[in-house]
């Protein structure tokens, strides 16, 4: 039996570059325009003055997006995720009311830290505040599968409802696993994506201790994340969420849905060498696996949305992995890292970047890595970097979205233009 094709029919994003709405189009417009969503952020309830560059969804109003009291039952990572999921669902033209016939529709969601803000509030109340009683919803707000469950509940999806927590590859793996479900016929429709809201004082402190966060002040924070550039000094933590509706291609065509792109392949690997040091060969294995799964050759590839977070070692290793896999095609294949604009939302990164990749194909435009083309690191050359300004007006045939996680878990999604 031939495997089913998987159509992307709905998109939703809440990110630091489009915090006022959840529209993927607004998100992509901001990326094309080269707008940075990064700024200096002082987390509330810090025990002393403290601020770092971060990607904050500052204008996001959970009460307005989800309604009271529903929003109040969720941690911020679920508020962001459910808002993105709702936007994707509406974008796909699917009925919001809990409909009959959704017994085998499902959710696959990625998050690295789940309800980190809720945990931190609980710790503060109990350890610092000395309270004997914590807020009664602490457990159900903080649990890592809360967002997926809220989504399944909201749309009456009765099939698999799974959460993948694989650090920075979480959402990419969720989307890949959802693709497999649609491809196999197990689910005609899957809502897939990811969300994270990691901007808690304690979490930021922990990342600082790893010495991977980019420094910055009020003026320099918007340009603090500089992937592939000589002046890069680390990653910028962010919050955000993105969702994709994945649907059996024939079903999507039958109902006249708009098909943005085909999710054609998914490749995974483990570096098997270090928890934190990226590995060229490990990443190359995931890239080759995704291309093979999509029956794509490097010659047919036009764009890669890189994982590149802006760390010294990570970006150079990813360039080496891409060069090894793409061979003679490497200089022609466009590459950019949209983290320079939206920061690194950890487990949600793969979802935001999958949406950017899908819209790059759909709108024939490549969002740039923010920065100065003249500042490209000599260790990162050899690819078709799109830096500083967008490249538009040239149709793209196929594209990859890379996610490479601490722990060595690599995930690559392959998309094809819908035509």
């Amino acid at each position, binding site marked *: 039996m031939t495997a089913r094709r998987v159509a992307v029919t709905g998109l939703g994003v809440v990110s630091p570059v489009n915090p006022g709405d959840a529209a993927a189009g607004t998100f992509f417009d901001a990326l094309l325009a080269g707008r940075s969503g990064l700024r200096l952020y002082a987390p509330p309830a810090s025990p002393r003055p403290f601020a770092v560059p971060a990607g904050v969804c500052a204008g996001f109003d959970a*009460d307005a997006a989800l*309604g*009271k*009291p*529903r929003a*109040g*039952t969720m941690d911020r990572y679920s508020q962001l995720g459910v808002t993105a999921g709702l936007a994707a669902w509406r974008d796909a033209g699917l009925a919001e009311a809990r409909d009959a016939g959704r017994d085998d529709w499902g959710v696959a969601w990625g998050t690295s830290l789940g309800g980190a803000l809720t945990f931190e509030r609980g710790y503060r109340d109990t350890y610092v505040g000395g309270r004997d*009683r914590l*807020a*009664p*919803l602490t457990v*159900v707000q903080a649990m890592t599968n809360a967002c997926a469950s809220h989504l399944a509940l909201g749309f009456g999806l009765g099939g698999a409802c799974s959460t993948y927590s694989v650090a920075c590859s979480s959402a990419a793996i969720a989307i890949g696993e959802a693709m497999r479900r649609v491809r196999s016929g197990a689910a005609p429709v899957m809502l897939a994506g990811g969300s994270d809201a990691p901007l808690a004082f304690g979490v930021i402190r922990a990342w600082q201790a790893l010495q991977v966060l980019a420094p910055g002040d009020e003026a320099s924070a918007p340009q603090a994340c500089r992937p592939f550039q000589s002046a890069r000094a680390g990653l910028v933590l962010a919050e955000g969420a993105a969702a994709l509706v994945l649907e059996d291609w024939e079903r999507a065509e039958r109902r006249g849905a708009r098909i943005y792109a085909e999710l054609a392949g998914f490749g995974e690997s483990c570096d098997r060498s270090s928890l934190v040091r990226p590995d060229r060969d490990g990443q190359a294995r995931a890239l080759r696996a995704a291309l093979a799964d999509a029956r794509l050759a490097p010659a047919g590839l036009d764009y890669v949305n890189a994982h590149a977070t802006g760390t010294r070692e990570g970006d150079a290793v990813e360039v080496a992995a891409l060069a090894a896999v793409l061979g003679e095609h490497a200089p022609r294949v466009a590459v950019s890292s949209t983290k320079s604009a939206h920061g690194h939302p950890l487990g949600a990164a793969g979802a935001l970047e999958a949406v950017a990749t899908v819209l790059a194909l759909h709108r024939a435009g490549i969002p740039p890595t923010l920065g100065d083309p003249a500042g490209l690191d000599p260790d990162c050359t050899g690819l078709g970097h799109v830096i500083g300004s967008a490249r538009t007006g040239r149709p793209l045939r196929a594209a990859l979205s890379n996610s490479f996680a601490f722990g060595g878990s690599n995930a690559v999604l392959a998309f094809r233009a819908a035509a």
Partner: protein
Amino acid sequence: MQDLASVYSFVEERLGLDLKRADAAAELAGLGVDSLSLLELMFEIEEKFGVAIDQDTPPPKNVGELAATIERIAAAKP
């Protein structure tokens, strides 16, 4: 003794409802207030107004019962 109006306005703000205009018989669940929201709300009331809500009293099911709960809280000594 609490100020009744301030308890009302706190509850209305948290739930996004105008309780005085709502039908007393209207089920809270139908207004989007499920058992989880109520649990959190009761905890927040205790925190904000410094009162202890009797854990053995069944939670309010409709707008009228919620109003009665609010009036009991307002009458309670902190």
